[in-house]
């Protein structure tokens, strides 16, 4: 069993209005040293057992096709092997 | 599902003997208190039940309840579900009339609008959840009331919201306000349901306890109205829609206690809404109802399975038996107690005709929804809950419903504060000196969030989807075109919708305040050209166990009932939200009135905006100078006191009839209700709406500020083409309604010449004005009014 922890972030250079709003809120609450905030998505995907290379390829593909929009977003992920007992 | 009768018999015996070892073992296995522990430790108290209520339950059951049963009673006998303090008062409302197809008692009221069509509507509150988690609280509030409408077989066509918050100066209030607005927006927009109107008032008394009342309106064919009744012994019982999780357990009990500092800890009680699933539910349920296979259908609102099952059985006089092991769940290890009390959203209980389950399952599956048979209708009047065949709760269904719940008529006592407030005499206040000060007061009022434009709110709502919104938010009342028979040939019908209340009036005099709420709602509809038809009420009050609060409640209901009777608008349903208190401080008594009216021809409608230069401006109704309870007193003098404006319902009726007749004859270019801020604000709003100025001469007897800003009732500000003025006067004569020509439309600002009426009744000749002439450029008024709320929200 694999657990993919996927992060999807807006590409650098794409305006992130949510990030800007959170930055403003933090600063008004006195966190003056905060310089930048970017808001993204975090997803957890569990996959049935397969080889690591296969699993990586599959996660990579689902990120490209569905989980992120390559026009505005970029993604990264980590893949951890879980004990089989976690299998549902 | 089949249960052998003898097996049932045995289990029944087992369940009635609380000493039974098997049963005790069962409770221990679930780590739930046993009946004995409940008795010895008085566990019902923590659930919000009184000692005598526990005794009543034991009496009903003929034994002690187990933990699950106790929880079921605790929630359904909460004020939120059982209306223990308000039920006797509801009897005061007129509930029938020639157009009323369904009064209170079902999920929503139904009113005949001709051509085989009906309008279905109801208001509901979600105050406590919104105070704790504003986005989800408001969103699930919308979800719940929308389900009440489409379960009646009606397609939801509009939402209106009545909101009350503290001062926008307070950052936490701004957080609550913006969260609630986004919640309504997020949920309603996703459903494709236009939010077409509403109101928002701001007052410190709502700072900790905001009010979020949502009204939903649907349209149905009269022969497709569905009812929430579990008829037909042997018919299956199905659970449809979302899965059941642990969310919202005891939400109804939560809504029936006062808030305090620890309320935020109750966050798990707040449910999370899924508007996408709700949208699918709407389409699937309407399709299912149209198929004719549905006998009864009900939303699982507060107390989920327990309330829907007991109410559906209660209405039909039948029983329901269901196995909760069959109910699709989201979390593992849920106990019967949790299953029966879960308030997971977007679920329905459906009773199909026996043999047509598969057909319904197919409809729901097409919409990606689960529909599962979990039980059947029985004839023994019991709600019997099993888990894998083993009985875990068994109570008379009707005893759980409002018919079975206790009723309280606590002591009512007129609050002492009224003597002091009524003794207040506004005539002793210093008067703003000169036209500049009065002009500045008008600008202050225009910028007061209660009066200012609510554009910041409603531009977040999709108010145009469904393409029937003829007059949207910002109007006196919304107007929707009604498609259907008659389209293409002859006139197209319309319905007009409004929601209204003034808590301050009710605080100062609940009887008059209640009457005014009804009169003003009707007046709003009339200003669009609609004939008022029926009412739904949302009663928001403090703790009814306090005599002063119960007095407020009683008097307000009496006021509403008398006005509804007088104006011919029966109450077809509603909601009561009590215990709106924080740390012992109650909100203003706030009965919210939602009203629906009918336009026979939607083209014959009227707006509040001045239309054309040279049109005559006329006041229909009495000239009044009353400042008690006014927004002016609060905003300019910082005073909440006096008596609210008097209301003469006979005059009110005649003014409304006159206005309607004038609109139907095509005499009026605009009609606008004089409400908060009085005649001056009404004039300013009609100018802003039409983007044109006006010049008027305003006579007054005692004080100019009272004539400008007093909120005397039964007044409608209209504009007419000069050639129609005489006909309007004649018409008014027939209704014995005073008509006061004030001036005319035109120019780039609002000019108000103040003219004192001499004691002998002679108005000062022109030019010899007392305090002089107020002049405000359109731009200044627009600036104060339009962006005020947005300015606060940017803070």
């Amino acid at each position, binding site marked *: 069993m694999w657990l993919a922890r996927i992060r999807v972030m807006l590409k650098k250079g794409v305006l992130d*209005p949510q990030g800007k709003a959170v930055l403003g809120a933090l600063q008004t609450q006195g966190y003056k040293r905060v310089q930048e905030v970017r808001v993204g998505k975090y997803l957890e995907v569990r996959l049935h057992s397969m080889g690591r290379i296969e699993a990586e390829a599959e996660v990579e593909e689902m990120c490209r096709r*569905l*989980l992120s929009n390559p026009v505005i977003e970029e993604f990264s992920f980590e893949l951890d092997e879980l004990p089989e007992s976690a299998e549902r | 599902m089949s249960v052998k009768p003898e097996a049932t018999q045995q289990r029944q015996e087992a369940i009635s003997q609380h000493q039974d070892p098997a049963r005790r073992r069962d409770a221990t296995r679930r780590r739930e208190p046993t009946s004995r522990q409940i008795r010895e430790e008085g566990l019902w108290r923590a659930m919000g039940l009184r000692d005598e209520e526990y005794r009543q339950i034991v009496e009903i059951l003929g034994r002690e309840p187990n933990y699950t049963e106790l929880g079921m009673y605790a929630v359904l006998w909460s004020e939120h579900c059982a209306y223990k303090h308000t039920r006797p008062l509801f009897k005061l409302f007129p509930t029938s009339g020639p157009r009323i197809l369904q009064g209170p008692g079902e999920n929503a009221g139904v009113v005949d609008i001709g051509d085989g069509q009906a309008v279905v509507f109801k208001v509901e509150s979600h105050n406590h959840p919104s105070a704790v988690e504003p986005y989800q609280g408001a969103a699930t509030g919308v979800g719940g009331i929308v389900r009440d409408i489409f379960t009646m077989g009606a397609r939801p066509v509009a939402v209106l919201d009545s909101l009350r918050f503290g001062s926008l100066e307070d950052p936490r209030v701004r957080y609550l306000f913006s969260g609630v607005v986004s919640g309504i927006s997020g949920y309603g927009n996703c459903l494709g349901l236009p939010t077409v109107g509403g109101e928002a008032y701001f007052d410190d008394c709502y700072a900790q306890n905001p009010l979020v009342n949502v009204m939903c309106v649907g349209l149905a064919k009269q022969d497709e109205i569905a009812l929430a009744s579990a008829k037909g012994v042997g018919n299956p019982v199905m659970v449809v829609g979302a899965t059941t999780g642990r969310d919202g357990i005891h939400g109804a009990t939560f809504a029936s206690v006062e808030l305090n500092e620890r309320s935020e800890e109750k966050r798990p009680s707040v449910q999370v809404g899924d508007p996408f699933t709700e949208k699918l539910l709407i389409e699937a349920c309407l399709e299912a109802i149209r198929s004719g296979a549905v006998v009864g259908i009900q939303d699982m609102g507060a107390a989920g399975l327990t309330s829907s099952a007991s109410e559906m059985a209660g209405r039909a006089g039948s029983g329901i038996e269901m196995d909760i092991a069959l109910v699709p769940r989201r979390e593992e290890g849920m106990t019967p107690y949790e299953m029966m009390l879960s308030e997971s959203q977007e679920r329905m209980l459906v009773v199909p005709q026996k043999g047509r389950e598969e057909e319904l399952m197919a409809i729901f599956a097409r919409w990606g929804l689960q529909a599962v048979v979990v039980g059947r209708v029985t004839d023994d009047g019991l709600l019997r809950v099993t888990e894998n065949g083993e009985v875990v709760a068994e109570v008379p269904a009707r005893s759980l419903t409002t018919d079975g719940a206790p009723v309280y008529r606590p002591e009512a006592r007129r609050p002492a504060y009224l003597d002091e407030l009524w003794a207040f005499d506004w005539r002793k206040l210093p008067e703003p000196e000169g036209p500049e000060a009065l002009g500045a007061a008008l600008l202050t009022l225009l910028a007061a969030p209660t009066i200012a434009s609510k554009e910041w709110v409603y531009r977040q709502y*999709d108010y145009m989807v469904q393409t029937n919104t003829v007059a949207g938010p910002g109007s006196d009342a919304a107007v929707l075109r009604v498609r259907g028979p008659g389209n293409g040939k002859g006139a197209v019908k319309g319905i007009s919708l409004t929601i209204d209340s003034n808590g301050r009036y009710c605080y100062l005099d609940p009887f008059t305040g209640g009457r005014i709420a009804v009169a003003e709602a009707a007046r709003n509809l009339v200003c669009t050209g609609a004939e008022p038809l029926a009412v739904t009420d949302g009663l928001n009050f403090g703790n009814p166990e306090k005599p002063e609060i119960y007095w407020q409640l009683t008097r307000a209901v009496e006021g509403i009932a008398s006005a509804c009777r007088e104006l011919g608008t029966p109450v077809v349903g509603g909601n009561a939200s009590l215990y709106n208190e924080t740390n012992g401080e109650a909100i203003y008594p706030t009965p919210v009135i939602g009203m629906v009216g009918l336009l026979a021809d939607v*083209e014959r409608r009227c707006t509040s905006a001045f239309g054309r230069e040279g049109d005559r401006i006329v006041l229909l109704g009495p000239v009044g100078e009353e400042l008690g309870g006014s927004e002016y007193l609060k905003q300019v003098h910082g005073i909440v006191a006096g008596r609210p404006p008097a209301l003469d319902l006979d005059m009110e009726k005649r003014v409304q009839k006159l206005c309607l007749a004038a609109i139907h004859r095509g005499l009026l270019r605009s009609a606008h209700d004089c409400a908060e801020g009085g005649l001056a604000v009404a004039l300013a709003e009609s100018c802003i709406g039409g983007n044109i100025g006006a010049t008027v001469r305003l006579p007054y007897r005692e004080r100019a500020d009272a004539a400008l800003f007093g909120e005397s009732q039964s007044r409608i500000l209209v504009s007419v083409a000069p050639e129609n003025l005489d006909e309007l006067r004649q018409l008014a004569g027939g209704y014995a309604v005073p008509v006061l020509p004030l001036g005319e439309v035109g120019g780039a600002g609002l000019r108000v010449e103040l003219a004192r009426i001499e004691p002998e009744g002679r108005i000062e000749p022109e030019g010899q004005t007392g305090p002089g002439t107020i002049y405000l450029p359109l731009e200044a008024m627009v600036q104060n009014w339009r962006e005020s709320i947005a300015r606060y929200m940017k803070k």
Partner: protein
Amino acid sequence: MKFAIVVFPGSNCDRDCFYAARDVIGQEAEFVWHTHRDLSGFDCVILPGGFSYGDYLRSGAIARFAPVMTEVERFARAGGPVLGICNGFQILLEAGLLPGAMLRNRDLQFRCEETFIRVETSRTPFTGLCREGQVLKVPIAHGEGNYFIDEAGLKDLEANRQIVFRYTDASGRVTPESNPNGSVSNIAGICNRQGNVVGLMPHPERSCEGMLGSADGRVIFESVVADLAGRGVARAANALMDRQTIHQVEKAAGGASGCR
């Protein structure tokens, strides 16, 4: 002619588009379920607004994988007119039938209001009856309509005359104040290179009747009706002309596509 109105789970302007096409414009219209795999018999496809799949993940991201989208792609590739309105536009972007992507509105709030949009090109089947520079009053209602495309992409759009509508003021001037959501270059709607696939955020189906505040949106539906009528004529004449030539022929003939 016959409109296909595609219904995804969560579409909520499907009925409005159907009403506009059938009852207002007077053409045939039919709902097409998202699992359907056949668009034969239809002359124009509309992807309506709403919240397909709740807009979960990203607006339009899940709907683009619906079975019907394969057919929509095929229909578009064959030159059939496809109109994506609001959520429909977002789906076309996600499906790659139109370039660019949508971000949340600049002020992070859902916005419902009247907007003015200027017709930038009359070369598409949905703007054939418009005068270039014509201003239409059409409302918006969206939370994610902030159109994004990188600079190179924007240059391409401009070079290929793919910008169909821009937000302007009432007199047709492109101003920062008239941009309701922060879209690049005030873009309200675009088309593909061929011009037959058009997406826009404003809702023309909501402005087809004066009673609702504006009838300016009708011209978008009427254009495609006229365009298809013209195509029928062209086909009959077995003439191999591109749409622009047809358009010019019609103009010369003083036919249905006269300026409004």
